[in-house]
């Protein structure tokens, strides 16, 4: 069953390029149906999960490829399977203007399976395997347009990711050697007897491995691949570079910290402080770069960098509350960012404009898109009543609760970043709705909101953002359950 949900998308992706569809509509139907079915299966799997570990292959000794559904998997797999059908729907519309559709959908759908693989992995090795696979399978998506820029970007992406994985690999080795098992166990698997006096080395390795996984989560100084990868078609940038891929990095960091090394071992050490400072720096750095950027998608990409580090900040707090914060932001940010990226994509699709300064007055022509964008902007800023506030609140109260000075300084970073977020997001909104007085309206003639395939996902995301903002109780409670190990 677990294997099925991973394989269906991969097989479906492979089929697309093999089967000659008569019409585009058939392909759309075929894909959308499969993706939805798969999401339903995932839903079923998560709700009726068994606590057994399903082992696929045994490598050497205690190393195996195996799967299991635990709380963390529920969060991430649930998130991914909720977003994918919508993103696919959106992509159908968006890709009408791009070439090589089939190749695109092949890899796009395969990625779904691989991402699920990451989320359902039962041990570090399996996760590592799918993590590498994810890199490889998404490269063609980045490369899609085949311009020189795209190829350079995909190369950069590839080098960064594989390089990061290489260092994360070192962490894997240490867990194999010093852990009692490589399976994910909340609280960590390190065997303290085996460590003896080598605590510092282990901490160093933890930092290295964290940064290794952090490459995908675009931690400074390994962040420059993310904005460059924005040359990919928007559905890719939105879903992969705001959700699946980068969140995999964050997810892996959570697994590494909470489920492998264990917070008891790490809390209060220099490793925690070092990572926290790096992450805090990234938070501010990402935002400041976003303010400077004028290309919409690159701006959003920088914003992603900063927001990912929010999640990692939650991770580095290393308390259950910190994990709750990280999870909340992991999920909520996915909705907010995918929504804003889709808006950017819709703008580009409908008007062909890429830069912020070209957006004057468009708010009146595309009210839905910009309305949605405004909501996501406000949510990203953390305006109360929207999703972003809740996750920030959880992060910050975790930081306060942890009592660490660095964490308190981190709150400051969060708030500075919130301000910068306001700057880079609201300037877009203001431009769109309050064009300069002498603006020539006629140049916008013919621009309209996109059709339903694009709007439906947008509206659903917006609905979710508001819903989470106003009524986050149950979901946050679920996260606390995950963090305390009841799930």
């Amino acid at each position, binding site marked *: 069953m677990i294997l099925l949900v991973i394989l269906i998308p991969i097989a479906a992706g492979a089929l697309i390029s093999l089967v000659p569809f008569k019409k585009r509509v058939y392909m759309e139907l075929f894909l959308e149906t499969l993706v939805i079915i798969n999401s339903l299966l995932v839903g079923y799997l998560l709700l009726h999960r068994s606590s057994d570990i399903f082992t696929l*292959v*045994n*490598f*050497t*000794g205690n*190393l195996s490829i195996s799967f299991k559904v635990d709380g963390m998997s529920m969060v991430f797999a649930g998130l991914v399977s909720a977003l994918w059908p919508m993103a696919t729907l959106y992509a159908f519309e968006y890709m009408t203007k791009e070439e090589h559709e089939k190749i695109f959908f092949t890899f796009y759908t395969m990625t779904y399976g691989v991402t699920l693989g990451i989320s359902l992995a039962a041990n570090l*090795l399996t996760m*590592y*395997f799918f993590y*590498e*696979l994810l890199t*490889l399978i998404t*490269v*063609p998506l980045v*490369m899609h347009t*085949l311009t020189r820029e795209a*190829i350079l970007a*995909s*190369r950069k992406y*590839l*080098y960064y990711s*594989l*390089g990061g*994985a*290489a*260092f994360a*690999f*070192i962490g894997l*080795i*240490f867990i*194999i*050697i010093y852990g009692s098992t490589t399976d994910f166990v909340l609280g960590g698997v390190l065997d303290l007897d085996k460590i003896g006096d080598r605590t510092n*080395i282990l901490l*160093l*390795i933890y930092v*290295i491995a964290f940064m*290794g996984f952090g490459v995908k989560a675009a931690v400074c100084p390994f962040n420059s691949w993310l904005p460059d990868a924005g040359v990919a078609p928007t559905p890719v940038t939105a879903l992969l570079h705001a959700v699946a891929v980068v969140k995999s990095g964050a997810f892996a960091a959570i697994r590494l910290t909470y489920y492998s090394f264990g917070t008891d071992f790490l809390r209060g050490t220099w490793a925690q402080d070092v990572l926290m400072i790096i992450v805090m720096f990234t938070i501010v750095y990402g935002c400041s770069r976003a303010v400077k950027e004028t290309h919409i998608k690159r701006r959003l990409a920088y914003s992603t960098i900063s927001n990912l580090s929010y999640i990692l900040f939650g991770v580095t707090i290393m308390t259950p509350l910190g994990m709750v914060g990280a999870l909340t932001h992991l999920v909520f940010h996915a909705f907010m960012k995918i929504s804003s990226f889709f808006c950017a994509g819709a703008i580009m699709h409908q008007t062909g404009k890429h830069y912020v300064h070209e957006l004057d007055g468009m708010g009146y022509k595309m009210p839905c898109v910009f309305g949605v964008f405004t909501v996501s902007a406000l949510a990203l800023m953390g305006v109360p009543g929207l999703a972003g506030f809740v996750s920030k609140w959880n992060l910050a109260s975790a930081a306060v609760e942890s009592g660490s000075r660095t964490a308190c300084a981190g709150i400051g970073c969060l708030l500075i970043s919130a301000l910068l977020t306001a700057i880079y997001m609201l300037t877009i909104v203001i431009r769109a709705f309050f064009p300069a007085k002498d603006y020539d309206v006629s140049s916008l003639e013919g621009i309209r909101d996109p059709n339903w395939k694009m709007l439906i996902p947008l509206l659903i995301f917006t609905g979710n953002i508001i819903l989470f903002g106003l009524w986050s109780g149950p979901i946050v409670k679920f996260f606390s359950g995950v963090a305390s190990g009841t799930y």
Partner: protein
Amino acid sequence: MDFVQNFPAVSILMCLFAGIISSGMKKRSARYISMGLIVAVTVLSLCTLLYILKTGQAFVYVMGKFPAPWGNEIRAGVLEAFMAFFFCVIMFLSLEGGRKKLADEVEEGKTFLYYVLSDLLLSSLLALVYTNDLFTAYVFVEINTIAACGLIMIRQNGRTIKASARYMIMSLLGSGLFLMGLCMLYDLTGHLLMSNIKEQAALIYASGEYRIPLLIVIALMSVGLAIKSALFPFHAWLPDAYGYSTVSSAAILSSLVSKGYIFLLIKIIYRVIGFDIFNSSKIINVLFIFGLMGMIFGSLSAIRENDVRRMISFSSVAQIGYIYMGIGMGTQAGIGASVFHILSHAATKSLLFIAAIGLTDVSGGSRKFIELTGAAYRNKWAGAAFTVGSLSMVGVPMFSGFISKLLFAQAAVQNNVKMLPALIVLGISTVLNAIYFMKTVIRIYTPVDDGKYDSIRFKDMKSYTVILICFILLNVILGVSSQPVVDLIDQGLAMFS
């Protein structure tokens, strides 16, 4: 004595005679003899392996009737038999995969010579693997060198001649050093058989005398073999030799010849000098550091390279660095990892060479990167194979390279001092590997639609494709079910002492 115990000696002799016979044969039959021979040796080695596994211990086979310490012995353990088996497989695949190219590149009248040389090479490799006698080892090292030179030179153009001359000089330097080491060792111990030397060496070491001569012996032998196996910084001969010779030669040289020397070195460590004595010498650190440097600089040179074949050659330098790093780690696990890497690198590198040739062929024969754009669409299987090879080199799970990386890293963790440098260099070198291999993969998958070159269809290259698939399978098998292989290696290493 069981009948099977004759097999190692028989296979060596068979190879020698096959070489002699086929030199008088016509071109076609030389090939058939050669191929038949390899298959036969494969079977024999397999039988030997199974036999040893059954009996659970190594056996010694005395050539002629002279008992030790004068005689000439062959020793077969799990690892030896397995290596022989594996070498044959790779040899077969490499020869077969490069056959077409060979016909293009070598003069009609000379092809049979190629098979003669390869028979000789195989015999020398087998001898290196099996021998229990240092002097025999030396003799076959020389035969090996000469055969290898021939393999390089057989494609006659200026570059290969220069390359083979260079190879010859470096190799002879290496064998010279090895010979000097051998002489000194003989002086010290009075023996040539490995087992006997080891006993004596242990006594000498224990008595505390001749410390420095012993050290020099170790140094001479290690450096000699290191030169021959192209350890950084003695790798200058390698890129030309691999890069310009015909593809089978490149594949065989990179995956077998240099590995044969390394295997000999490992044997010397275990069976001649003694693991502990070797460990306590400083030479091991030198090997370790050279290994690390090789990992980095080999990859850096590969990144700078603009020629696919030479790039793969430079990557060999890096991979050999891995192996020496494993040896230099000074732990059982490290050597085990090295042995595994010998296997996985042999499987991967010959795959890469063979696949690269398929790609360059559909790109007008040019090996420049720019011409390779889109080559993977013109020759789909070669593209896929190259990708698999690259992924394995980068160390993506499910492929053999990942397992060797895993083993190296696990071995590294057991050594307090060498752990961090080893791990960090391992990480960096992975990144570097990723850079040049992935660059190539992206390049060959970047479509072009100018239609400059024709694509090639499956029909036109059946055997070539089958070979590629075999290589891919080999890689994946090593990557997925590595546990039996690792067990074999451990068992074999245990049998060494």
